[in-house]
């Protein structure tokens, strides 16, 4: 059975594109400081323990540019400072990601537990055509693996298509695609969601009010996400659309397929980001070469940078969304989780010898934030939402998965700080989440239930 969603593929494609993109991580960004051009050799550079983010590296002293202090300082001192900065900001960054991820999961779990619609089986997406209603376990497993293969291939094809579009500079097409997909999410999915919530609580709403509410919500959302808006409003909208997308996945993915897809997509994420020929890696490298931002509205950013007065040749794609971007990319910052925006943000310096004033740099440092791709939000929420939906009404499983995902995120950020290299955010969290889901559902639940029935505490 196929649902109405099949009519417009575009709503799914952006989702896939979103997830595949967002799971990716930008590879290490070579330092743009002072005329240093990003090149293929940037890869090798990035692997060095450099990235002091200033002109103090031996190569650049000869440039004679004005750096922060203008005085060549010893490399080691800087590296120490950098280490300390990394870790000093590390904990704050982790919390800056914990909060939105937690909020997204809370929205998803609250909806799953209260609104029946999202746990009812009403057909499947065309990307998972094989039904799981078969009697035998082997057949069901086979169907779910086939579903996964189809879904992952769709995602890979989409990503490659996107990379090609980007490589051949079809920006208008990409932006049109993105705008169409956010339109779909902000209007259509919100309308459905609101309808179901009103049905659940038996609240009546007339059409004019509904139209007003949806119109305002959607219009402000489009502006905030694609153009300028208060940072927190933009963050709230991004969290909401991630939650809506996750709910769609939870509703329309059959059970076993969902778990296999989660596992497969974290493996794909790992390969796409770390392999040299991975599509996501190529995408980010291309973006770096061109000194351009990739796509706005697909990355959650937690801080704002005021880049007033920076002499920076701006590309058309970048202009409006600059304000809502987190800069901090004077090459100094560690690459947090999946964001392609990193490479864009890193070129707050044009490849010009003169550098911005010191105070502005310090301001940048202070306002540094973290970014996380929306696909990660979506898949984390899918995991926790599925746990809430299918774990026989047990809250322990949901909570265990939640803690597992947070710890995975924490470890990913720690690895990021250690390796200073782009890392995918999905694998560790999803692995922990899956392990905890299956073990809590099958082992811990009977134990705790038996203990609770005797009112025993451990």
């Amino acid at each position, binding site marked *: 059975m196929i649902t109405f969603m099949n009519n417009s593929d575009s709503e799914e494609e952006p989702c896939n594109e979103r997830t595949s993109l967002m799971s990716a991580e930008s590879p290490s960004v070579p330092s743009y400081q002072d005329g240093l051009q990003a090149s293929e050799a940037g890869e090798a550079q990035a692997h060095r323990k450099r990235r002091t983010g200033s002109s103090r590296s031996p190569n650049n002293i000869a440039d004679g540019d004005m750096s922060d202090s203008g005085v060549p300082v010893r490399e080691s001192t800087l590296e120490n400072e950098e280490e300390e900065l990394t870790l000093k900001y590390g904990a704050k960054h*982790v*919390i800056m990601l914990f909060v939105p991820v937690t909020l997204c999961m809370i929205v998803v779990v609250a909806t799953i537990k209260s609104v029946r619609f999202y746990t009812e089986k009403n057909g499947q997406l065309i990307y998972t055509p094989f039904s799981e209603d078969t009697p035998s376990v082997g057949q069901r497993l086979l169907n779910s693996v086939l579903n996964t293969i189809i879904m992952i291939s769709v995602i890979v094809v989409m990503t490659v298509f996107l990379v090609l579009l980007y490589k051949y500079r079809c920006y208008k097409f990409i932006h049109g695609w993105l705008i169409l997909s956010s339109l779909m999410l902000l209007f259509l999915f919100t309308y459905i969601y609101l309808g179901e919530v009103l049905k659940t609580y038996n609240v009546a709403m007339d059409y004019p009010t509904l139209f007003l509410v949806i119109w305002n919500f959607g219009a402000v959302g489009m502006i905030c996400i694609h153009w300028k808006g208060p940072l927190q409003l933009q963050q709230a909208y991004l969290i909401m659309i991630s939650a809506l997308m996750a709910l769609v996945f939870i509703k329309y993915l059959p059970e076993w397929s969902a778990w296999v897809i989660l596992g497969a997509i974290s493996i794909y994420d790992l390969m796409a980001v770390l392999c040299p020929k991975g599509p996501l890696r190529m995408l980010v490298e291309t973006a770096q070469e061109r000194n351009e931002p990739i796509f706005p509205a697909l990355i959650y950013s937690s801080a704002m940078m005021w880049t007033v007065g920076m002499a920076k040749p701006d590309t058309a794609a970048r202009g409006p969304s600059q304000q809502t971007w987190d800069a901090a990319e004077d090459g100094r910052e560690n690459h947090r989780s999946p964001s392609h925006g990193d490479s864009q943000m890193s070129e707050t310096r044009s490849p010009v010898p003169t550098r911005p004033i010191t105070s502005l740099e310090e301001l940048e440092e202070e306002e540094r934030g973290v970014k996380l791709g929306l696909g990660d939000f979506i898949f984390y929420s899918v995991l926790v939402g599925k746990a809430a939906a299918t774990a026989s009404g047990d809250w322990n499983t949901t909570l265990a998965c939640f803690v597992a995902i947070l710890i995975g995120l*924490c470890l990913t950020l720690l690895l990021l700080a250690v390796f200073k290299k782009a890392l995918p955010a999905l694998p560790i969290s999803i692995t922990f989440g899956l392990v905890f889901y299956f*073990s809590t559902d099958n*082992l811990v639940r009977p*134990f705790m239930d038996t203990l609770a029935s005797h009112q025993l505490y451990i």
Partner: protein
Amino acid sequence: MGAAVFFGCAGIAFGPALALVLLTVAAEPLRVIVLVAGAFFWLVSLLLASLIWFISVHLSDREDAKLQYGLLIFGAAVSVLLQEAFRFAYFKLLKKADEGLATISEDGRSPISLRQMAYVSGLSFGIISGVFSVINILADSIGPGIVGIHGDSPYYFITSAFLTMALVLLHTFWGVIFFDACEKRRYWCLGLVVASHLLTSGLTFLNPWYEASLVPIFIITLCTGLWAFFTAGGSFRNILKCLSCKQEDDSRVMMYSALQVPFED
């Protein structure tokens, strides 16, 4: 019934924990991370204990009720021991992290002290342990139902809430005492903490005879609390000073003028 019981019991069970988290943990990112990581460690210990219990149940005769009850006691004991083992493992991890943080900080001191980490880790164990014990009960307390219709105690919800509160506080105190004992290598303290945990868990086996289980558990909580207070460096003088809100600043001036690094606690 319904919402009143739910909110009341939730408040009783998690009120102190929520207050402690909001006032002491939420503002500091490092403490939040220690909190979440502590919860993770507790979960892993529970997982292993459940695995052991699950295997033992499957290898045994399911029909024999007495045997099953015995296996449950065994499972609970194993779980307590594993929790303490993982508390020790967490101590080791935090100690290493503390050293790491100290080396890379600018003044050679880590931004969070081991005592703070002890407190937060104890709190994290307590919260996650309490949540896992009582959340399903709380969820059931909203819905329609009659408590104790088969002859069980009608005070199930409220006693569960009080037990959870005691457990949360106990874990916090045990965390403080445990870390301090490990730090100072006082192994009898360690043994005492483990013993008191086993005792508390064992006392819950006396439910629903609540006079024999709840009252001693609360007495144990109080005693452990006092012990933790004195372990953490508290004393009657400190309480008096805190209550009288006196400022002490003279000695600082002296130290600054003597060009010494002020000794901060």
